[in-house]
């Protein structure tokens, strides 16, 4: 399970976020915070996209800075506003990420069909609506064998059917017992939708339990 220790993130010398210690057990964590509070900054740091001070690791000792490749095998990230080169098709993206994450073609097809991405599989991303782009991003978030799946605003632009499919997939992954989900959302996630282990809030540059 992922652990954050002595985490801090600064932009141009200004402190954005500070997390002295946070452990995430397998299950679902809802991360809340106002616009600009630092949710995406935290997520991008944990996904290995932006640098930070401090340490993020798994309990078996795999650290993001010392073991970047192994760490990234265990972490999948779906962005709030995914953007991919417009000329690439959903097929190009899914096959590329699927190959990198060692996901079988069969499972790639399964997730693709589940979210309805097969309807625009061969179309270039530049023709996608924001909802279609979100679905593509969510498909790839389930590839491989991740121990941490970060979903930044997964519910925006998503239709109700896709939302239910997403919740079903999350519940299925949780049953495997080894996956942590970090989900940020301004929309409420009811207990009937997902069983949230803990709700955390980013407030005054700190991550605090609600």
């Amino acid at each position: 399970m992922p652990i954050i220790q002595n985490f801090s993130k600064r932009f141009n010398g200004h402190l954005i976020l500070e997390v002295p210690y946070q452990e995430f057990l397998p299950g679902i964590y809802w991360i809340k915070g106002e616009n600009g509070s630092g949710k995406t900054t935290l997520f991008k740091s944990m996904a290995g996209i932006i640098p930070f001070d401090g340490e993020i690791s798994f309990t078996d000792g795999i650290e993001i800075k010392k073991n970047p490749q192994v760490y990234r095998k265990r972490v999948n990230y779906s962005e709030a506003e995914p953007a991919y080169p417009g000329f690439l098709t959903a097929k190009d993206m899914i096959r590329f990420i699927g190959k990198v994450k060692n996901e079988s073609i069969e499972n790639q097809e399964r997730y693709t069909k589940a979210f309805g991405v097969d309807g625009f599989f061969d179309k270039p991303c530049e023709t996608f609506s924001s909802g279609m782009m979100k679905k593509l991003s969510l498909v790839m978030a389930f590839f491989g064998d991740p121990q941490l799946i970060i979903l930044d605003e997964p519910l925006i632009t998503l239709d109700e059917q896709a939302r239910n499919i997403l919740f079903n997939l999350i519940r299925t992954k949780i049953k495997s017992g080894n996956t942590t989900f970090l989900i940020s959302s301004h929309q409420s996630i009811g207990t009937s939708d997902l069983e949230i282990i803990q709700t955390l809030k980013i407030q005054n540059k700190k991550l605090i339990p609600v």
Partner: protein
Amino acid sequence: MVIEFYRINIGFFFVAIGFFFGFLSGREHKALAEAFVSSSLLLLIPFAVWTIYAIKIIGFNGLSFGKNENSFLLSTSCLPRLALLSCLTTVATNQLSPIIAYGCFLIIVAIKSDQLITIVEIIGFLFFLILLISIRLHTEILHPNKGKNISAFKNKIDKWITKPFAWFYPEWILRKQPLLIIGTKLFAGLLIIGVSRLYLFDEYDARLMGMGATLMFSSNAVIVYYYQRFENFHFSVLRNLPFSTGQRMIQFLTVMGLLGLLEWGMLFSYFPEALSIIDLVALYSYGLSVYFFGYAYLFIRDISLEKFINKAFIAAFVWFILILFKMPVLFLTVLHFCIGWIIYRNNYYRFEFTAEAGSEK
């Protein structure tokens, strides 16, 4: 729109300035201009170049209006018609200013040569280009979001083929900056042919070809710069993927090798017989090391394209001198790869874009 246009195309202007002012003297420029203004037929040559430049501007403006962050520009549609047209012609004139400057130079030469009809033709064509760009801008503002039409050919290709990763960046840069690619390859090709021909007339050792290759490889600095931008900004998901630093390095070298096929092929075809196959292989590896060194350097800190090109020119000058003074190309290759690897391994995951650098993306 104007500042952004020049900022994004600064590499192109550097190459153009280097080409036109590096290779031609003032007298040659004047002789060329006199040739152009002497006949309406020859005048078509600068007109053709100006048209390509105008097409580049139109393409840039179209792309700019398509970006979400520029959607505020559409509010200019609320301006009174005359004010809007005045604004748009000002934008078009400013974007065309290098062409207009050269057009003025041609007009001065034409006045001295009493070519009055030529003057009318030049002024008329410049007005035509300003009008063309202004009308396109006007259409973009008043009829936005026409929707993306995908050609039947692309639809077929997308159905049949899954693009390999090595093709992502080449297609991206070809779509974003086609003239940059064409210009760079043209420059590289002409350079190789020119340097190779010198071996026919006198005895030179591998240093001359080494110096020529240095210029050729260094001219790809902008392509290297945009690769780093593509990999870390436009396709930032790559930073989340479980590639080792070594794999990322190999991906970069593979893509640069792919993009360099044309000039490498020309190097092979025109390679002087006086030099050995070992010299050729040494130059290929030297080229890759120059690309990798520049690429690794970009991860030290965020840097604007202008600063990177300046540093690339300085580096090229240093390599030029080192080769001239008999520094073996293979030694430089090993040095580039070693230093580049240390920089790359230590800085790749520490790298972050800083908005203040005003760096081109």
